[in-house]
């Protein structure tokens, strides 16, 4: 059952493509269960071919699922809605390059059933929002990559949909473009929209998302709040900076630490797990040294992603 608070919900969503003349099966998405809350920024993390884009295409009706159920804003996929609840920014920004920015936005507005006058007002707002007012009469073929991504966001917002799906919105953007895109996405959340987006750039996902899901070869390997996924586990390392440690203390430290580096008058040690940390603290107390800092080595999302991918490869092999 789909609950109204879920913006998107899937149950055992599966897509198998048939390739070549003999129809060789290729599973792009395998039994994916998702429950995305209204108003959150939800990230999809995965390597090329992980199934992110296929899930987006299923949600936008471009691809038919082989099996499973999908609900979008409480409505089963395929049920005819009077207004599209989804604004979609496809990967790589391929648009009708022979149209001007204004013509393109009017075209997409009319595809949503908007009248010419309603489009006109909305186009002014959106061009202002994405900073393209000055180039409204310029054809898209003259646009830079960053401008194309911004016009892409504008077309996705044309009918003010409550759900936005952004496929690799940062792809090909320079650092300034990425910063602008991040601000745009955060602005969408402030405006009360649910945002689903995929990226290869883990730092962007880490910065923006309330929750993420990691996909490996079409299957979900982890889903959760970013801080929960990154929460240090008992066996994970911590780094301690110690000052005034004597020779005897160093002798006792050696077997407890995995790494020891002298830095001027200080010693930096890396310790595995909470119990080892306690033992090192005891040595510090006995040696009358001073603890300068203790930093748990929290995993980055990138490390988590890499370890999930490795674990999945091991299981498959």
């Amino acid at each position, binding site marked *: 059952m789909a609950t109204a608070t879920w913006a998107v919900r899937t149950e055992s969503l599966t897509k198998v493509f048939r390739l070549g003349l003999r129809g060789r099966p290729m599973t792009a998405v395998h039994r994916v269960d998702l429950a995305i809350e209204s108003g959150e920024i939800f990230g999809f993390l995965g390597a090329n071919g992980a199934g992110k884009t296929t899930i987006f295409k299923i949600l936008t009706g471009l691809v038919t699922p082989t099996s499973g159920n999908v609900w979008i804003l409480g409505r089963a996929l395929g049920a005819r809605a009077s207004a599209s609840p989804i604004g979609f920014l496809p990967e790589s920004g391929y648009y009708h390059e022979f149209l001007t920015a204004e013509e393109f936005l009017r075209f997409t507005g009319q595809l*949503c059933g908007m009248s010419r006058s309603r489009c006109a007002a909305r186009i002014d707002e959106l061009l202002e929002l994405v900073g393209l007012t000055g180039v409204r009469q310029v054809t898209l073929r003259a646009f830079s990559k960053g401008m194309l991504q911004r016009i892409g966001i504008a077309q996705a917002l044309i009918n003010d949909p409550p759900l936005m799906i952004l496929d690799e919105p940062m792809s090909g953007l320079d650092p300034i473009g990425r910063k602008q895109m991040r601000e745009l996405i955060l602005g969408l959340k402030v405006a009360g929209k649910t945002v689903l987006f995929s990226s290869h750039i883990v730092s962007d996902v880490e910065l923006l998302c309330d929750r993420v899901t990691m996909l490996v070869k079409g299957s979900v390997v982890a889903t959760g709040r970013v801080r929960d996924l990154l929460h240090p586990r008992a066996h994970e390392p911590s780094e301690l900076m110690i000052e005034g440690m004597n020779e005897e203390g160093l002798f006792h430290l050696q077997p407890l630490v995995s790494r020891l580096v002298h830095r001027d008058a200080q010693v930096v040690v890396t310790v595995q797990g909470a119990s080892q940390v306690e033992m090192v603290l005891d040595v510090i107390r006995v040696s009358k040294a001073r603890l300068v800092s203790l930093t748990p080595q929290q995993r980055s999302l990138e490390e988590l992603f890499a370890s999930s991918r490795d674990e999945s490869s091991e299981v498959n092999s």
Partner: protein
Amino acid sequence: MIRVWAVALCTIREAVRDKLLYNLVAFALFLIGSTILLSRLTLGDFHRLVLDVGLASINLFGVVIAIFVGVGLVNREIDRKTIYVVLSKTIPRWQFLLGKYLGLACTVAGNVAVMAVGLALVLWVMDVPMHGELAGALVAICLELWVLTAVALLCSTFTTTTLSAICTLAVYVIGHSIGQLTALGAKLDTLGRTVLTAIAYVMPDLERFNLKGLVVEPHSFSSLDFSLMVAYGLTYIGSLLALATLVFKRRDFQ
């Protein structure tokens, strides 16, 4: 209808902003204009030559435009991935196809009109009389091109641009040989006759739209005959669009 009109307008804009179209129309106009020179070299009926070459040029270049622009109608949207933006909006797929078709049908009609104006100018310069049959022949050419456009659209929903062009060209050739196919079938065994008869029924009989002979040598062609020809063309187009929709509805866009 806003959605259908939006797709049609976008298709017209794409065609109008494509240099290939202008080159084709310019070349057709050049060919029609060259009949002025050709007629000076002709000893016999130069009226007939101007009308023959003029109408044949309009037909030929119309076919080239219908095939080469028509086969790319859907494939270009898929290849350039612009279809993702279009179909992710609330437009049913049949409306997208109808819009595409109407856009190209308008473009084809516009091109025929421009070439017809060129022909009319040549006829006026050459002092060749113009009568109602000429307008009828131009409408028939337009209908034939619209049928071909529908064939091209159907092909482009399930195969590549090159294969679509080959298929549409094949339909054009077969469509003008229905009479010969039927005659050949009569000389074959049952199987051969059945196959050729089936082809003759399924393929569009494009010779029905060939009224050029009426213009050159006027003879009776009633308004009922004309209405039947129009009804045949529109029914065939409707059937092709319905089939294209059925194919297109099942398609995944990877």
